[in-house]
């Protein structure tokens, strides 16, 4: 049918044939669906498995840096990186949140909400200080992390996450930041320590980023509070969500969203504390070199 169609010269006739073709296609699809449902009903568990949809993610270009947690060398590497003291439970997180100079209203309230999400965090006004001057002072006051929210035109659009005392520093682009006020059917936030859900960070770079993000939250989550903070990586976009879960019965769990939402995209990861001029970069996003394939992901 599809072969004949372009040869028909009359536009009206061609359109009719095309409509017919679409109808038949839809019919075939429906029949296929019906057949499969019938099979599933009759055979039960023995039915042929569902076909997996072809997505960009499932067709991902194989990455040789995928972390194998049983590998001794990677374990050794992780045990001596900068975040290791947190995972050995030697340090307790203390987070300093600040903004770029002269923040607008939205950025300010975003910082306040972030403060509610991250326990043991402090929002400080930037006062026009250089980051390179803030960092030594923060280290002196036993802060373990520094978050800087950058904004453009009153809209938060960047996040710098610097692990203290000696790095690494990650720079993210922030998109779609939604305050609690802008979200519907929101629950009330509590002060329980949240559980942290770091999802789908699988490459070596992803593992480092995941470790940096989980470093922000205290070790022992309060399971009674049932608060959960999620960093979900999908196609190199990191989704942040904040929920409270509730077990309805033994099978069903319901979620209620609590806090702000935002989306992060990694721009660079730098060794050491913030030093964009002479710092050594572990990874930099180079658009023209790296974004050659849509199926290649870095995190």
């Amino acid at each position, binding site marked *: 049918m599809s072969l004949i169609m372009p040869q028909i010269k009359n536009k009206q006739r061609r359109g009719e044939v095309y409509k017919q073709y679409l109808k038949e296609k839809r019919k075939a699809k429906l029949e296929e669906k019906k057949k499969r449902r019938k099979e599933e009903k009759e055979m039960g568990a023995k039915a042929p498995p569902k076909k997996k949809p072809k997505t960009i993610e499932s067709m991902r270009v194989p990455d040789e840096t995928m972390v194998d947690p049983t590998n001794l060398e990677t374990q050794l590497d992780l045990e001596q990186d900068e975040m290791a003291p947190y995972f050995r439970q030697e340090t307790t997180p203390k987070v300093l949140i600040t903004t770029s100079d002269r923040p607008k209203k939205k950025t300010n309230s975003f910082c306040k909400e972030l403060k509610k999400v991250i326990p043991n965090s402090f929002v400080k006004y930037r006062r026009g200080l250089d980051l390179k001057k803030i960092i030594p002072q923060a280290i002196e006051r036993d802060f373990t992390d520094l978050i800087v929210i950058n904004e453009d035109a009153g809209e938060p659009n960047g996040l710098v996450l610097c692990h203290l005392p000696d790095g690494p520093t990650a720079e993210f682009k922030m998109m779609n930041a939604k305050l609690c006020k802008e979200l519907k059917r929101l629950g009330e936030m509590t002060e329980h320590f949240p559980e942290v859900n770091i999802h789908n960070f699988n490459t070596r770079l992803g593992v480092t980023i995941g470790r940096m993000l989980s470093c922000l939250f205290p070790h022992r989550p309060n399971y009674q509070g049932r608060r959960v903070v999620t960093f979900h990586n999908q196609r190199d976009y990191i989704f942040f969500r904040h929920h409270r879960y509730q077990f309805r019965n033994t099978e069903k769990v319901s979620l209620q969203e609590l806090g702000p939402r935002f989306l992060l995209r990694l721009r660079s990861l730098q*060794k050491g504390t913030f030093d964009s001029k002479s710092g050594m970069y*572990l990874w930099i996003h180079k658009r023209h070199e790296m974004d050659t394939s849509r199926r290649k992901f870095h995190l």
Partner: protein
Amino acid sequence: MATPMPSIALKMNAPTNLSSEQPYAVFAGTNTGFLKGCSFSNKSPVNINSVEVPVKGNEIVDICWWDNEKESFILAGHKDGRVLNYSLDDGTVINVSTKLTEDKSFLRSIRSYGNSLVVTAFSNGKVDCNNYALSKSSQSGNMVMDQRATAVALNAGQDLFCMDHNISLGSQIATGGKENPLKIWDITSPEQPIFTAKNMPNDWLNLRVPIWVMTAEFVPHTSKIVSGTGYSQIRLYDPSAQRRPVIEVQLKGCKDPITALALRPSFENQLVVGTTTGTLALVDLRKKDIIQHFKGPSGGVTDIKFHNSCPLFAACGIDRYVRFYDVNLNKKQLHSIYMQSQVNCLLFSSKSLLDENVVGPQWYPKSKTADLTSENSSNLSDQSEKQNTEDDNDESVWNTFKVIQTKKRKKQPKSSSTGKSKIKKV
């Protein structure tokens, strides 16, 4: 040495890994303390030693050959100041020096010369030059490094970043660092440097130009020295001419510190530089510009090394990759190897045979590569001789070709052009 091995012992893996059947093309020192060997044909590197305890001081900062001719011993300098000698033939580790660094300083680089001299440079400016001899101990039958002559210690000033040793003039050492200008020292007279670079003249605002020597390398067979700075300048110094650089190149469109630099063999004015943001570029000193960028590194480049007979170089970085490039071919990498931990230093083995899959056969005819790799000699005279013979060969090739002559069309004489043809015939 008299002091016992430190508790963070590094063991050598079974020597079966080091069979001489397939020698490694490149050795790499990593930040986890592993010394790795990799070849062109294989995608996965092999660990030569084994590390059990995660300690920061284990990090291998620099490696070099103990014997440049035979290439059977590798000296590895660890961050905490230990130097170990790995024997590739029988797979043993010999402890060279256990002098651990004081307070916060750490090892920056290590060089060896003439099967005896070992030079170690530390970040606080201390440079130690010791003479060693490799011998079998009478008690256990193991190989032992004995310290021979009295040690020479230099103080090259605070914040040392780099040290290089002049192979052609065995007693010269160059040092440099942050606010620590490039100096050339003679080991025989360690009190005063024989050359100290003069700072560049003030800039157009009449402000002092900051000094930050990140890397330095002697030009082979001369006393000239090339340095890369933390402000992305490349400077060529000629100590016999003047104290300021003879040539200075400011990389265009790039403000990142130059962290690695390698001179292209048999091309006097070309070198490959690598920066903290992963720029890798071939620079010409005369042209004062970048000739070509190389694609690939996603993080800071830590070391670049050239193969001594092929136009091939390797670059490693803290993005955990070692990448191989052909200088002539194109900007894409020939081959890359994932190393699992951040790579600090590289060492090419001249024994390695090049794989045709990696290096395009069109660039290296079989006979030529076999010749070069089997002889392993990198003397200039030899190379020039070879080049001469090659030139002769080339000419003989030209003689064998037939001269193709284009046939002249015989034109049908038209009435109007007959006059012209007549004139030609005459």
